[in-house]
């Protein structure tokens, strides 16, 4: 689809007037001038403060036990698993942008992939906290890992939680490697630009002796492409495996074959929403309108619209299959979701995840950064509500009405959740401070007439 731009060529992915020098200067100076805008200090301050909240709540949790949370019988999983799935979902956009869009030669990814990947890593770090913290005895977490031991015990490989360990750790490793490989040429740039000894030393160490020779570039390209190829299945596999945590269970509302695709779509939806949530303020903060152009934002909005529709299809299929199967427990579960004690959450979910994002059909909305930011925030909330609905409502009313119960989060649930947002923000702002948030060398390839590829038609 082409928007009425009045020209035949699509919008550029980099505004005109840039050359190699200006790109390098613009991006690298954010890191090496040593001065950060006020916004950075405010953002970092908030994030850091919230991270302290996380530390406090984690310590209290370890001291007292998971009973400080609102979980109970029958709702044995609450905020921890909701947040795990939410953060993992957010983590999806990074790899999708880096790997799949790279393989598809979508060069508009260039200006957003670096911080999207960082976002992925940090989101996975936040996500990774929850499976650990939610355990009754977290100090034995390593029993989920297959390692030779004197017990003569393996993990129980039929459990999706064991699959999770593999899926999430693989994803985290692959994402970190991918991110780091992609950083090497830029780290070398920073090393070369560094004026103090610390900078020279640290960036020098991290750039692994990058000299920019043709052989280096060749090996870099091969490694990066290979990693992209490796990472691509992970985009699908991680959330598929996470969805198995539910789909393998026999609880109505969990036990559904639609879960893997529906979770993956939801994850991409959530991931792009989070990328927009971050990109819009960063772009404004550092004046990066030339690099993160209106076209980037529009493209992301379109991806959100598409995945949002898949998610909406998932919701409707869930309800339809419950009705169509005529299965007592499934029907009752859907009725409970639609009209039961958690109905307000369901209808809020429909509003924020299905209805409101439909405004993205309108070009005016896609062009307005403020509107996009609002929609992205709404989707962030919506995807959280979706996981709340899946985890909590299904458990609260399953087979025997005698065991039905309600769930209410405690302040420690909220503190832990908000605390991980703090952790995320802290890491994100530190990243902005010490690493180039946009890939410098890849941006150079976008300069018209430059050495790189030309801006392709992605629309």
């Amino acid at each position: 689809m082409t928007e009425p731009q009045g020209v035949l060529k699509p919008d550029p992915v980099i505004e005109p007037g840039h050359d190699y020098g200006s790109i390098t200067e613009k991006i690298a100076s954010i890191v090496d001038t040593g001065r950060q805008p006020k916004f950075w200090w405010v953002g970092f301050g908030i994030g850091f403060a919230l991270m302290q909240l996380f530390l406090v709540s984690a310590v209290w949790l370890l001291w007292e036990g998971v009973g400080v949370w609102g979980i109970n019988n029958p709702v044995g999983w609450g905020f921890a698993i909701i947040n795990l799935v939410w953060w993992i979902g957010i983590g999806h956009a990074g790899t999708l942008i880096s790997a799949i869009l790279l393989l598809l030669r979508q060069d508009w990814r260039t200006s957003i992939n670096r911080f999207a990947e960082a976002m992925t890593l940090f989101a996975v770090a936040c996500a990774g906290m929850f499976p650990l913290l939610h355990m009754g005895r977290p100090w034995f977490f390593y029993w989920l890992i297959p390692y030779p031991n004197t017990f003569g015990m393996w993990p129980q490989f039929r459990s999706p939680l064991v699959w999770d360990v593999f899926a999430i750790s693989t994803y985290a490793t692959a994402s970190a490697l991918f991110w780091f490989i992609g950083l090497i040429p830029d780290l070398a740039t920073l090393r070369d630009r560094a004026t103090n000894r610390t900078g020279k030393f640290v960036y020098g160490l991290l750039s692994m002796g990058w000299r920019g020779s043709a052989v280096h570039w060749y090996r870099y390209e091969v490694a990066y492409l290979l990693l992209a190829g490796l990472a691509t299945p992970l985009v699908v596999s991680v959330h598929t495996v996470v969805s198995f945590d539910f789909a393998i269970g026999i609880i109505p509302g969990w036990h559904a074959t639609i879960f893997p695709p529906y979770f993956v779509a939801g994850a991409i939806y959530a991931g792009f929403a989070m990328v927009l949530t971050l990109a819009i303020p960063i772009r404004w903060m550092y004046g990066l309108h030339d690099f993160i152009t209106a076209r980037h934002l529009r493209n992301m909005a379109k991806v959100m619209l598409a995945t949002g529709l898949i998610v909406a299809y998932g919701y409707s299929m869930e309800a339809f299959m419950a009705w169509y199967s005529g299965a007592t427990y499934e029907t009752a579960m859907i009725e409970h979701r639609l009209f039961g004690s958690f109905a307000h959450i369901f209808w809020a979910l429909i509003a924020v995840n299905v209805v409101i994002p439909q405004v993205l059909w309108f070009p005016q909305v896609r062009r307005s950064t403020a509107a996009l930011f609002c929609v992205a925030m709404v989707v962030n909330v919506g995807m959280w509500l979706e996981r709340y609905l899946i985890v909590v409502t299904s458990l609260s009313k399953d087979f025997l009405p005698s065991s039905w119960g309600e769930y209410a989060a405690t302040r420690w649930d909220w503190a832990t959740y908000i605390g991980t947002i703090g952790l995320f923000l802290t890491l994100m702002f530190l990243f902005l401070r010490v690493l180039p948030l946009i890939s410098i060398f890849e941006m150079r390839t976008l300069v018209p007439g430059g050495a790189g590829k030309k801006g392709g038609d992605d629309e």
Partner: protein
Amino acid sequence: MTHQRLHSVELTELQDKLARAQGKQYWRSLDELAETPEFVEYLHREFPEQASEMNDPVSRRRFLQLMGASIALAGATACNGQAVEKIVPYVRQPENMIPGRPLYYATGFSLGGYAIGALAESHMGRPTKLEGNPEHPASLGSSNSYLQASILDLYDPDRSQVVLNNGRIATWEGFIAALGTELATLEASGNGSRLRILTQTVTSPTQIDLIEAVQARLPGAQWHQWEPINRDAVRAGAVAAFGEPVDTRYDFSRASVVLSLDADIYADLPGSIRYTRDFADRRRVRDDDRNMARLYSVESTPTITGASADHRWRVRASDVEAVARVVAASLGVAGLEGSGQLPDGVDAEVVDALTADLRAHAGTSLVVPGEGQPPAVHALAHAINAHLGNVGETVVHSEPVAPQPQSQAASLEALVEDMRADAVGMLVVIGGNPVYDAPADLDFAGALDAVGTRVHMGLHANETSELCHWHVPENHFLESWGDARAYDGTVTLVQPLIEPLYLGHTALELTAIMAGAAETEGRAVLESAWRDRWAAGEIEVDLGPTFDKAWRRILHDGLVPGTAYPARPTALVGGWDLGATVNSGGMEVIFRVDPTVYDGRFANNGWLQETPKPLTKLTWDNAALVSPATAERLGVANEDVVELTYDGRSVRAPIWVLPGQPDESVTLPLGYGRTRTGRVGTGTGFNAYTLRTSDALAFATGLDVAPTGRRYQLASTQMHHSMEGRDIVRVGDFHEFESTGGIQHPHTHVPGPEESLFPPYEYNGHSWGMSIDLNVCIGCTGCVTACQAENNVPVVGKTEVANGREMHWIRVDRYWSGGVENPETVFQPVACMHCDNAPCEVVCPVAATVHGSEGLNEMVYNRCVGTRYCANNCPYKVRRFNFLDYTDYDDAPMMKLLHNPDVTVRSRGVMEKCTYCVQRINVARQDAKVDGREMVDGDVVTACQQACPAQAITFGDLNDPDSAIAAAREEPLHYGLLEELGTRPRTNYMARLRNANTTLNPPVERSDSEVEHD
């Protein structure tokens, strides 16, 4: 007098000091502490009030620490510190004692004066569990929640531990000296009548003899009895009917048609455990035994008896008499004065059907009046039973088990009058808590002030001891020598299992001292009394040539054979009918014994507090029970606080809407609102005794209810009451089963083993299974408490229960169906089903729950990391998680003593659930191996099965074709819960049947498409 008002104690600082000390240092630091001002102050106060700690989940750990401190401090104050323990092997091993193997001793537990024979399990001298005594007629091996939980009282750290004089610590010797002086003065001055002894209901022959000896020493000394849940009406009814206070007991094993007139046959009668067993045998239906006794219930407050009844009609408590009268009249009972009108809820058609059925079963029918019903109803029931020829068949009259010259209410009233008139110089209260539970209009506490010397002996320092000059700790029955009669008169021996943990004494000892008896040591008192009776030939059964042999036999059996009272002929006297009572209008208030804390004596018992009440499923609180229609009229809902006013007194209570409750009638369970009990019980519920006056001990009309707009949180373990049309508890029609051998139930597809990709497990040895017969299950929750005691199930407190975190391994689900006003009630005990295809096993990431070689779904606590995935994936929701540290007894050594050493105490963060009492399976396996034989059916008895008074639970080896469980699996009524999920549960159920009177309930045709036949 200046009785010391006791204040709450800030223990924090003391505790902090204790927390820093360890091992021997611990005791040394106590000595140091003793020097500090706060410690000295603590000594002068008595009750550290930290009850609220119990309710706060997060500070529970703290509470337990406090509990430990209180024990330690009490130890210091009592100068009775536990000796340094040296672990050395026996040089000469005591006979029968094998380390690691328990010994069982017969003893007796009394409630309301009536004894139930018990077997106490003792591990190396430490009692850990109580069971019914199979040889005892009141038990036959079964028990109830009270009996099961009474062992917790033994280890209760809040138990009274030292003699108190005006709230200060004193000594037993000091007390005896003071008592001796007082008594000598009374004796010398000839003022014997100024001595009063107030006891609870006493059936102990030795205690009665000793009290009479006191009266002989001090002529004129009077003995009063008061028990808030007394049998005055029963007694008065017998006097009205027969002219003498005969006792009535029932033989349910002969009953075919039973009519309950507001009687909770299964819970409230002295012989309830036995009755339940006998009647369950009459109601158990098998393919080859298609007989079922019928139970009609006309009742006010819903009870488990009404819930089990084939027909239940709800009438106000004050209307039961009218129903009884009309039934009697239509049966043609002679001597009836006027017949009266039927109340709402029962119509003439019902009475016709009922009377026809009773008449058709003359001689095998039975009418049981409720303990709370007035004498007139009891007289009517006697007349009906006599008229139907049931006396001598299903009804047995005998000498009264509890000899009482007058009714307890009158006795207490006389005492209070004398106290006010300054005619009482010394009052000795042995057991009980009259300040708390005496009728409100008597103002017992106020009258007490006029008594010169007041002595209280009790298990706990309570509201009464607070107002007494002396408080003497009483021994728990597991520390005591004593005797008591059972419901049928059988003398039951009480023998101690353990040296008294604290400085307590028994009622027998105190009375013996007061009587100036030669023997004053518990065992000697009892033994010499029985030696005398032996010598006098009072024991009719030949127990051996010498007394010592006889005594050994008595102690071994836990009862004196041949002491049941024989049946005694009775005849109705003229004018037996007390005449119809005219009901005044207005709302009715009903006072009922609480199904868990009884009359308040178990208020500090955490197990009972947390056992859900059978109908309401409430824990930790009582509530004003009202019908849905009344709640609507009052504009109140659950947890709304109302102000209840009766006769000028008022109390605030939260509302709980209870379907089946009669309209315009409010039931107030007694036993809550204690102000002086331990930290568990203080502050729970509201005190219904506040409204209970001498003329309204059971019920009365004229209650005012006013909403206050406030709310009070109640903790119920079941929030949803409908089966939602699901095939959960199968209820069938007995007549249909009788003719077809099957019942109708919704069609479900049960996947067979061949539908799984995995091969089925093979069981070459044993294959354990359980079957629960819902047709005889009465929903009493005895199994819940028994399981708690056997398996070290922790108590979590009200907040945690409200949060859905109760830990019971077996729960009794209660569902209602039909109209909301008078629904049908069904119960279903649910524990781990030990599925062959268990959803929990596949999802555990660390293999902490695995399938055993004998079919058990085994939970490996040590391996559990606490992901709770198994609990989520369990369709029966029987898994329980230690969300917090519920078992931190490091600082409470007394509580540790209680634990069953054969069962692991679970730590924070691990999952737990029913194990099929695997420890019992293993013991049985070892025993069989030692004996060189195969295990046989009946070797393994699970705790729930053993306790069940209805014997509804069958357990055994499915691989043994001759076992009871294998036979149960062949029964047509047998089904698996949620079998359609393919879980293949090993615990199965047998459908409940309703033996409706076809005149009242013509069979309903159901469409075949919805149901299938077995």
